[in-house]
């Protein structure tokens, strides 16, 4: 299983901080596409992190990975 986390406006849109789903074997870009369809999100300017490290769109998700979607940051 995988934990998929949402932050900022994405969390508002999804209505949850995280969802648990088995998405292992998918690439980040395939997962993005799936979420865009399910939740009507726009993820083209959103980064993904796998296990707390930024990940590229072609990274393949493994079982147990935590995936977080990171909108452009605005700390400071």
């Amino acid at each position, binding site marked *: 299983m995988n934990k998929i986390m949402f*932050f*900022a406006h994405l969390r508002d849109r999804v209505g949850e901080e995280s969802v648990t789903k088995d998405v292992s074997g998918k690439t980040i870009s395939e997962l993005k596409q799936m979420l865009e369809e399910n939740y009507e999100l726009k993820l083209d*300017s959103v*980064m993904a*992190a796998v296990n707390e490290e*930024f990940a590229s769109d072609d990274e393949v998700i493994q079982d147990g990975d935590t995936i977080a979607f990171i*909108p*452009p*940051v605005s*700390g400071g």
Partner: protein
Amino acid sequence: MNFEISKDPIDIQSVIDKVVQREAGAITTFIGTVRELTHGKKTLYLIYEAYESMAVKKLEQIGTEIKERWNGAEVAITHRTGKLDITDVAVVIAVSTPHRADAYEANRYAIERIKEIVPIWKKEHWEDGEEWIGNQLETVAYPKGKPEAKDLNE
């Protein structure tokens, strides 16, 4: 614990104390505060949210980058989350180095990197609405859809 995300008001002195070292000839402290007017628009308050565990890791990464770049530097950063009012302190960065020029430069580097790679978001609350900053309407922080490779691994 030189790199922290805190829900409580930041004790500035305690951040500075973490970088005190006998080798230092300078400590620079940056204090980021909540501003009332942005492009003429009046902010009532802000909410900061963080992906806390990753944010701490990325702050540590910034510390490592600074130590590699500026010899003898010590770094401490605390960023606050939750509801912040106008004039509240959002972030404190303390850097000590043997010579002052490095302390200024390294401190500036730290805040610029926070704005690139640390997963913290602010939601502006105005008189006429609210908005997460960093979405496509406000800023385009990732023009190519992600932080540049140099931003992530430098």
